[in-house]
């Protein structure tokens, strides 16, 4: 088990009701974090349409996560 700080943005934050929380999760990759928190962010989008960052760097969904990491879950972006 790993302690992961998960940060939610935009619709994910509204669904989760918090912008950030510390969770103890059985996860290996960023995609695992997305799946493990699905009931929190309630994404209607598949993981591939969303983006992820680990410790302030954009990451791939198969990137490994370590105990103590902060994982940023981004719903599909819409700048401009």
């Amino acid at each position, binding site marked *: 088990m790993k302690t992961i700080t998960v940060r939610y*943005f*935009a*619709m994910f934050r509204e669904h989760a009701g918090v912008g950030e929380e510390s969770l103890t999760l059985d996860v290996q990759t960023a995609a695992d974090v997305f799946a493990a928190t699905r009931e929190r962010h309630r994404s209607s989008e598949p993981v591939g349409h969303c983006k992820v960052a680990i410790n302030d760097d*954009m990451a791939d969904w198969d990137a490994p996560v370590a105990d103590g990491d902060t994982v*940023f879950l981004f*719903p*599909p972006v819409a*700048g401009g």
Partner: protein
Amino acid sequence: MITMTTDPILPDELRDNLFDPGAGAYCAFEGWVRNVNEGHAVERLEYEAYEPLAIKEGERILAEARERFKTLHAHCVHRTGLLEIGDCAVWVGVSAPHRDEAFLACRFIIDALKVRLPIWKKEHYVNGDSGWVNCGRCAAHGHSAA
């Protein structure tokens, strides 16, 4: 240079930062808040960004544009917070020796910004509803806002 701001964007002032003795062309793009999206009458927009990463990724995009199109200067400013109809939400400006590079780099930058920066847009509709907007590419996969 990319900047995120809650203040109004003033393109004329931003343009002055791109002057260069070697520049024969300047091209800019302004994205404005419009009053309708996908049939919904829009009253205002709200932009949310995760700024540290928006800036980091934005600088990467500008560097890619400079490398690829040999531009002299490429800047971007993106608004956050509440915007009204007609407000400038995003500005991209490029100076280059010739017009082809300026046009191409400007187009490349705005297209990349829209799909790569951690920025989200919530539409507030005239009827009181609101909804998060999906990017065009994702909307094409069948997701609708609101």
